[in-house]
C-alpha cells in the first residue's frame, strides 16, 4: 500500500502527455499572470473568500462553462470516433473513459453548477432577500463542488479516468473488473461535490421559506424561485441516497467490502437500484430550474403574466413527487417481475401529465401576447418542439414492454439528449442571455447570439435525430465502433457532422462573451427587458446588499406591479436603515482544499494520509464553531452614495436590443 509516486502520472499516451504539458503550462501561465498583474489580493478578498450569493453564482457559472468545454470535447471525440465504421481514432479503452467522463461531467459538473449558479444569482433577488439563509455554507457548497470537479478532471492525467459509464454499474465498476483506481475518482470526487450540492439544497429550502420579502407569499413567488425551491427539495430527498451509494462504492473499492461485488454474496443490482433512486430524481433536479427559466423568459417576452400560475405550481410539485417513484424504469430489463415493471410503467407515464400542463401553459402565455424574438426568447421557443420530441420518446421508453427493444440503444441516447439539451442547455443559454446584464452590467450581443442559436439548434437536431433511427435498427450505446455491414455508417456520419455544427454554435457563445466583455455598451438600464420580477428592481450589476430597502410585494410579478402602479420605484432616503451583512471568510475555501487533498489520498488508496487530512476538516469545523464574528453594518451614508450612483443616471431603457 501507500502511494507509488512514480506511477501517479499516466505515461505512454501522446494525447494525455499533451494535456499534461498543456495543464502545466496553463497553471504556470495563470500563476505568473496573476502575480504580474498583482491580482492575488483582489482574487482572494473579492472572490475566494466571498460569501456574496451573486459572486458565488458567477463562480459556479464559470465552472459550468469550463466543464461544458471539457464535456463537449469528450462528445466531439466520441462523434469523431463513430463517424465512420471501424474507425481507429480512439481505442476501446479510450472511448470508454471518454463517454464516462462525458456523462458525469455534463450532468454533475456542467448542468448542476450552471443551474445552481443561476439559482444563486437570481433566487435571493427574486424574493427580495439580501442573501441566502446561510451565506458561509453557500461558499462551502461552491468550493466543495469546485474541489470535486477538479479532482474528477485530474483523473485524465493522473491515475486514469473512470471507465464504467456514468452509471458505474456493478459488478463492472468493482475492483474485480476495474482494478485500477479510475473508478475511485468517480466514487470520491462525486461524493465531495454531492455533499456540496446537498448543502445547497438545504440552504435554498431555508432561504425560500424564511427569507422572502414582506408580502411575498408562496403563491406570489416567481416561477423560477418556485422551481428552484422544488428542485432543492428533490436534492434534499435524493442526494442522501447518492451519498450512501457512493460511500458503499468507496467501501467496496477501497476497503474490500461486499455490497455490490459478485464474490462474498454481494448484490450488484442493489447499486443500480440505489443509483437510480438518486439518478432519476436528478434529471428532474436539472430540468425543473430550467423550466422556471423558460417561464420567466416566455412571460417577459410575451409581455404577459404566466398563464395558469397555480397549475404550474401544482404540476412542478406533482413532478417532484412522482420523480421519486419511477426509478425502476431504468432497469425494466432486469427482470424484477411483471408486477414491478407494470407499476413503474404507470408512475413513469404519469409524469407526462403535469409536464404537458406546463407545455400548454407556456403556449397559452404566448397566446395574445406580443412575442419579441430576443435571443433569450429564441432559446425558450426552440425548447418547446425539441423537448416534446424528447418527452414523447420518454413516454415510449416508459412503456415497459416496448423498452425491452429500446433499452441501451442509441434510441435511449437520443431521448436523453433531446430532454437534457433543450431542457437544460437551452435554458441555461437563455438564462445567460437574459440575466447577463444583471450579473455584469452589459448585454450579450444579440447578433452573435442569434448565430449561436441557429448553429446550435440545427446542429443539435442533426446530431441526435438520426440516433433514434439508429437505435431502432439495433445500434447499441457505448460501443466504440461498428462494422460496415451494420449499415449504420451514413446516419452516424450525419450525426457527426451535426456535432461539428453544434460546436461552431458553442464557439459563437464563447466569442460573444469575449466580444461583449470588451465592447458592449455599459450604459444600460437596470431593467433592459422591461421585465416583471424583483431582480430587475435593483441596479445592474447588483450592489452587494441587493436592495437598499427591502421591497414590499403586493402581487405576482411584483416588479411589474410596481411599475404599473408606480409604487416603490423611488427610494425614500429617510426610510433607509443600516444593513447588516455577513463577513467574508477564507474558511470555506480552506475546507474545500483540505477536502480535496483528503479525497486525493483516498482515491490513491493512501488511507492514513486521507485520515490525517480529514482531521483538517474537523479543525476547520471547530474553528467555525468558535468563530464569533457576526457580520458588519453598512452605514446609511454609504447606502445613499451607492444608490445615487445608479438611480440618477439617465439610461435609455432599450438601447441594446437589436
Amino acid at each position: 500500500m501507500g502511494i507509488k509516486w512514480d506511477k501517479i502520472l499516466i505515461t505512454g499516451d501522446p494525447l494525455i502527455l499533451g494535456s499534461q504539458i498543456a495543464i502545466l503550462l496553463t497553471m504556470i501561465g495563470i500563476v505568473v499572470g496573476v502575480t504580474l498583474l498583482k491580482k492575488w489580493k483582489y482574487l482572494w478578498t473579492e472572490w475566494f473568500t466571498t460569501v456574496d450569493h451573486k459572486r458565488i453564482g458567477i463562480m459556479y457559472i464559470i465552472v459550468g462553462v469550463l466543464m461544458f468545454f471539457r464535456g463537449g470535447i469528450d462528445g466531439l471525440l466520441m462523434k469523431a470516433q463513430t463517424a465512420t465504421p471501424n474507425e481507429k481514432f480512439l481505442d476501446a479503452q479510450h472511448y470508454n473513459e471518454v463517454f464516462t467522463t462525458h456523462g458525469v461531467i455534463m450532468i454533475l459538473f456542467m448542468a448542476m453548477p450552471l443551474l445552481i449558479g443561476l439559482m444563486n444569482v437570481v433566487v435571493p433577488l427574486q424574493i427580495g432577500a439580501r442573501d441566502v439563509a446561510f451565506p458561509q455554507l453557500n461558499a462551502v457548497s461552491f468550493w466543495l463542488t469546485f474541489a470535486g470537479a477538479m479532482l474528477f478532471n485530474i483523473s485524465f492525467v493522473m491515475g486514469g479516468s473512470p471507465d464504467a459509464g456514468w452509471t458505474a454499474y456493478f459488478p463492472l465498476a468493482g475492483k474485480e473488473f476495474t482494478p485500477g483506481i479510475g473508478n475511485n475518482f468517480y466514487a470520491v470526487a462525486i461524493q465531495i461535490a454531492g455533499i456540496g450540492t446537498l448543502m445547497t439544497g438545504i440552504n435554498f429550502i431555508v432561504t425560500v421559506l424564511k427569507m422572502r420579502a414582506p408580502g411575498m407569499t408562496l403563491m406570489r413567488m416567481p416561477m423560477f424561485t418556485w422551481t428552484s425551491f422544488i428542485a432543492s427539495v428533490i436534492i434534499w430527498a435524493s442526494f442522501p441516497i447518492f451519498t450512501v451509494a457512493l460511500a458503499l462504492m468507496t467501501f467496496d473499492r477501497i476497503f474490500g467490502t461486499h455490497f455490490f461485488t459478485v464474490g462474498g454474496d454481494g448484490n450488484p443490482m442493489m447499486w443500480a437500484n440505489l443509483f437510480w433512486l438518486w439518478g432519476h430524481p436528478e434529471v428532474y433536479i436539472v430540468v425543473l430550474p430550467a423550466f422556471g427559466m423558460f417561464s420567466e423568459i416566455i412571460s417577459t417576452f410575451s409581455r404577459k403574466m404566466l398563464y395558469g400560475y397555480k397549475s404550474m405550481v401544482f404540476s412542478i410539485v406533482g413532478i417532484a413527487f412522482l420523480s421519486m417513484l419511477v426509478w425502476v424504469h431504468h432497469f425494466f430489463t432486469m427482470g424484477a417481475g411483471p408486477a414491478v415493471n407494470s407499476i413503474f410503467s404507470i408512475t413513469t407515464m404519469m409524469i407526462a401529465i403535469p409536464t404537458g400542463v406546463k407545455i400548454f401553459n407556456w403556449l397559452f402565455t404566448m397566446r395574445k401576447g406580443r412575442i419579441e424574438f430576443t435571443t433569450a426568447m429564441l432559446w425558450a421557443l426552440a425548447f418547446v418542439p425539441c423537448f416534446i420530441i424528447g418527452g414523447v420518446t420518454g413516454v415510449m421508453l416508459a412503456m415497459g414492454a416496448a423498452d425491452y427493444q429500446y433499452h441501451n440503444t442509441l434510441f435511449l441516447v437520443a431521448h436523453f439528449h433531446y430532454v437534457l439539451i433543450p431542457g437544460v442547455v437551452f435554458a441555461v443559454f437563455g438564462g445567460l442571455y437574459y440575466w447577463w446584464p444583471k450579473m455584469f452590467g452589459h448585454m450579450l450581443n444579440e447578433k452573435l447570439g442569434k448565430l449561436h442559436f441557429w448553429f446550435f439548434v440545427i446542429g443539435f437536431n442533426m446530431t441526435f435525430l438520426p440516433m433514434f433511427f439508429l437505435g431502432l435498427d439495433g445500434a447499441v450505446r457505448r460501443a466504440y465502433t461498428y462494422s460496415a455491414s451494420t449499415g449504420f455508417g451514413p446516419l452516424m456520419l450525419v450525426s457527426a457532422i451535426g456535432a461539428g455544427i453544434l460546436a461552431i454554435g458553442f464557439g459563437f457563445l464563447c466569442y460573444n462573451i469575449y466580444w461583449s466583455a470588451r465592447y458592449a455598451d455599459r450604459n444600460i438600464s437596470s431593467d433592459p427587458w422591461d421585465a416583471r420580477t424583483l431582480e430587475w428592481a435593483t441596479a445592474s450589476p447588483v450592489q452587494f446588499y441587493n436592495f437598499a430597502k427591502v421591497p414590499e410585494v403586493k402581487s405576482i410579478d411584483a416588479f411589474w406591479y410596481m411599475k404599473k402602479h408606480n409604487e416603490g420605484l423611488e427610494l425614500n432616503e429617510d426610510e433607509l436603515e443600516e444593513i447588516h451583512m455577513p463577513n467574508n471568510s477564507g474558511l470555506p475555501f480552506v475546507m474545500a482544499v483540505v477536502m480535496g487533498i483528503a479525497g486525493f489520498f483516498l482515491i490513491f488508496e493512501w488511507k492514513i494520509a486521507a485520515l490525517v487530512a480529514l482531521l483538517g476538516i474537523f479543525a476547520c469545523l471547530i474553528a467555525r464553531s468558535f468563530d464569533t464574528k457576526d457580520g458588519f453594518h453598512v452605514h446609511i451614508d454609504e447606502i445613499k452614495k451607492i444608490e445615487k450612483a445608479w438611480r440618477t443616471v439617465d439610461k435609455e431603457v432599450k438601447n441594446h436590443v437589436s
Partner: protein
Amino acid sequence: MSKKGFLIPLLAVLPVLLLSGCDTHMVVFEPKGPAARDILHLINWSLIFMALVVVVVFGLFGYIVWKYRATKENKDYEPPEEHGSTKLEIIWTVIPIIIVIALTIPTIKTIYSLEKVPAGYKDKKPITINVTSADWKWIFSYPDQGVETVNYLNIPVGTPVKFKLTSAGTMNSFWIPALGGQKYTMAKMETQLYLVADQTGEYIGKNTNFNGKGYADMEFTVEAQSPQAFAKWVKDVKNKAPKLTEKSYINLLKPSNLGRETFSNTHLAFVNHADMNSKTYTFPELYRNHDYPGQIFKEPDNQNHTMKMDGQAEGKSMDMSKMNMKNMDMKNMNMSGKSTGGENNGN
C-alpha cells in the same frame, strides 16, 4: 424576425429526409418472431398517440408564435393579463390522462404476456438453452442435447425456446432484436426469456449492457433452422466437437473476444453460475488498464483458481501493471479457436 417560422417545417421535414436517406429497414420494425411482433404492435400503437401529441403541440406552437409575433404594426398592443382558464386546464389534463390510460393497458398486457411462452406456441414442447455471458463472449449450453457453443446459437424454427440467462461476471443484456426484447444476465441468479423464431434465417444477437473493453464485439449470430437441420447439427456436434474440460472452461472465462466454438458437453457439469452458492471466478489482474495499481482484495474463491493457475502470487501484482493493455488491439484478440485471455497478458 420571422426566421422562427422555419424551425417547425425544418423539424418536421428532417425525419422524412433521414428516413429516405437511409434504407428504411429497421430491425425493430421487422420482427421474425411472435415476441418481437407483440412488442412492435405496442410500439406502433404508441406511435399513433405520439404523432398526435407532436402534431397538436407543433401546430399550436407554430400558430401561436406566428400569430402573436411582435411586428411594427402591433407596437402599441398591450397584451391582456390572463390568469388562466379552468376549462382549458381541465382539457389539457384530461386528454393526456386518457392517452396515458390508452397506453398503459396494452403495455401491461404485453409485459405479462412476454413472461410466458408466446401465444400460439403453448402446446409445443420448448427447448431449454442456458445462456451464460462472460467477458466478452456468449456461452450457450443445450442441457438436453448436451452440447455447448460459444458466440453462436442454433435454434429450431417454430419451437419456443426457454432461455435461462445468467452471467459468469459482469452484468450483460441478452438481446436478439429480430426475435424479441432483451433481458439482463446476472451472476448468481437466473432470469428467463421465451423467444420463438417463426422464420428461418440468420439474426444478430448482442449485448447491450456495457461491460468493459471488449464490449463492442460481444455479438453472436442466431440461426433459426428447420427442426431437421437442427437435429442434424446436434448430432454432428456430438460426434465431432471436442469436449470441454473444467480447466479449459476457466480459461474460456478469462477476458477475451473469441470467435465461434463448439463443444460436445456443457459446462453445467462443473458450475452453474446461476446458482447463488456457485464458485466465483474473477480475474482482476487481467483487467488492468493504467499504470497505477489499485489494491485488490483476496477472495477465497479466487485464490483457488486464478491465482494459482496463472502462477501469480498476489504480491506480484506490480509486475502485472507493467503490461500495457492499451497497445493491445482488441481486434487482434478476436482470433478464433482457443481462448486467449490467459496467454495474452504476459506481453
